[in-house]
């Protein structure tokens, strides 16, 4: 299987402070990978570095070609969708406008309309609220909207930053089920950053554990979930 995303020796900086100290990992096409770690470990920074939202050095290759110094919007246009921390919902716009914005770089307007309908099938609650201001949606609904918006890009790779944040466990389970479905049916490679290790490991096939800017553990999600020592040392359960 080819590596869709290849990250080598990634170092990232916030001003003078170094947040990532030489991260290397690869995502295979069609995989569902989770990046786990405590608060401040560098998970969000990793996603931001992939999208060039933070100063970094190192080599990142997507589909075999280096991302180089492309701007964030150009990286997105290559087919990488990023659902940021806090969801990044366009709160002043309607639900439907949010979905249209997800597809704003696409040229096939008929395909966009069809995809919006597909999103409403995946997430019926969005159809109910499609003319409402996105800011009035509940946390769970906004998360669904954020995922739907990312899918409107028809991405090859989807990055999600703590999608479970602030959501009730039942809703998180539903959300993760949908992510699994998207990964299998729509063949979208997914990288999920999570603090909620247990659920994430149930969902993913591969896992990396990051601590203070370094990868300390990697392997099959099952193996890591079943490894009591790892769980206790790094994941806290």
């Amino acid at each position, binding site marked *: 299987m080819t590596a869709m995303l290849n990250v080598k020796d990634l170092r990232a900086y916030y001003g003078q402070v170094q947040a990532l100290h030489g991260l290397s990992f690869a995502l295979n096409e069609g995989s569902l990978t989770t990046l786990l770690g405590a608060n401040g470990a560098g998970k969000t920074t990793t996603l931001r570095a992939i999208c060039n939202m933070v100063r970094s050095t190192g080599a990142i290759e997507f589909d075999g070609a280096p991302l180089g110094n492309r701007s*964030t919007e150009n990286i997105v246009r290559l087919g990488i969708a990023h659902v*940021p921390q806090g969801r990044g919902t366009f709160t002043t716009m309607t639900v439907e406008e949010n979905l249209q914005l997800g597809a704003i770089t696409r040229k096939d307007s008929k395909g966009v309309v069809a995809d919006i309908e597909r999103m409403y099938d995946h997430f019926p609650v969005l159809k109910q609220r499609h003319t409402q201001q996105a800011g009035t949606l509940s946390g769970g609904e906004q998360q669904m909207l954020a995922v739907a918006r990312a899918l409107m890009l028809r991405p090859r790779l989807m990055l999600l930053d703590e999608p479970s944040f602030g959501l009730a466990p039942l809703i998180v389970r539903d959300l993760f089920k949908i992510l699994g479905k998207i990964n299998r049916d729509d063949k979208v490679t997914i990288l999920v950053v999570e603090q909620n290790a247990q659920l994430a490991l149930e969902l993913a096939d591969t896992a990396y554990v990051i601590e203070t800017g370094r990868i300390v553990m990697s392997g099959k999600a099952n193996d890591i979930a079943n490894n009591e020592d790892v769980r206790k040392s790094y994941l806290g359960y």
Partner: protein
Amino acid sequence: MELFTNQVLAGIATGAIYACMALAVVMIYQAIDHLNFAQGEMAMFSTFISWQLMQWGVPYWWAFLLTLAFSFAAGILIERLLFKPLAKAPILTNVAGFIALYAIINSVAGLIWDFTIKQYPTPFGSSPFLGSQLISTHQAGMIGVTVVLLILLYMFFQFTRVGLAMRAAAAMPESARLVGINTSWMIALGWGMAAAIGSIAGILIAPVVFLEPNMMGGVLIYGFAAAVLGGLTSPLGAVVGGFLVGVFENLAGTYIPGVGNELKLPIALALIITVLVVKPAGLFGRPIVKRV
């Protein structure tokens, strides 16, 4: 009562000027999230360009279209050359940039065309409108053009992809980049459109206030006030605000004793600020809830 109605109507007529300028102000605010103090000067300069073209024999409507195109291009150029480099600088530094731009444009216009006032033609004629003593055909034309502009802008923002992208880029730039929008170019586009709208405002205003480099000074302030009154994110609010400001100004001049021409501006501003103290987001603005 008749005096009151007359003054209100007259206020609406003059308010069309402010409404038009306020549209340009809202346009730039939608793009860059703050106000550009040099916008009046840019509008003035564009108007002079159109005047110069007509002096050289170009017919009115051709001059109008060419000026529109020129203003659009100039707005983009100014943003790319002068304000893109300041994108990461603090807001106050950008404001200093606007002031510098103001000084440059005003001075250059004065040098090229000097400070004597010039007549500027109107395509609407200046006879009384429908026999009314208060509104001339030109003023009616101004109101008409402003309303048409408003409708076009509304349609642009609500129904086009670029309009949606611009709104997104202004509201949440980082999220916009994450859907692939080039926010930097959205800003440039906003500047271009604001400059174009400003040029229309200038061309409509010049027949009334006469063409000279300082003609837009007061108008811009009223335009700001009108935009703020209407709620900075609402083109409709800007237009309504403009008419209201015109009416305020006239009523203040008529009914408050001692208010000569010079005090009209501060009184109008004071009235607007009073409204803002009561309704901080403006008449049509959406109230903003601030979270820590």
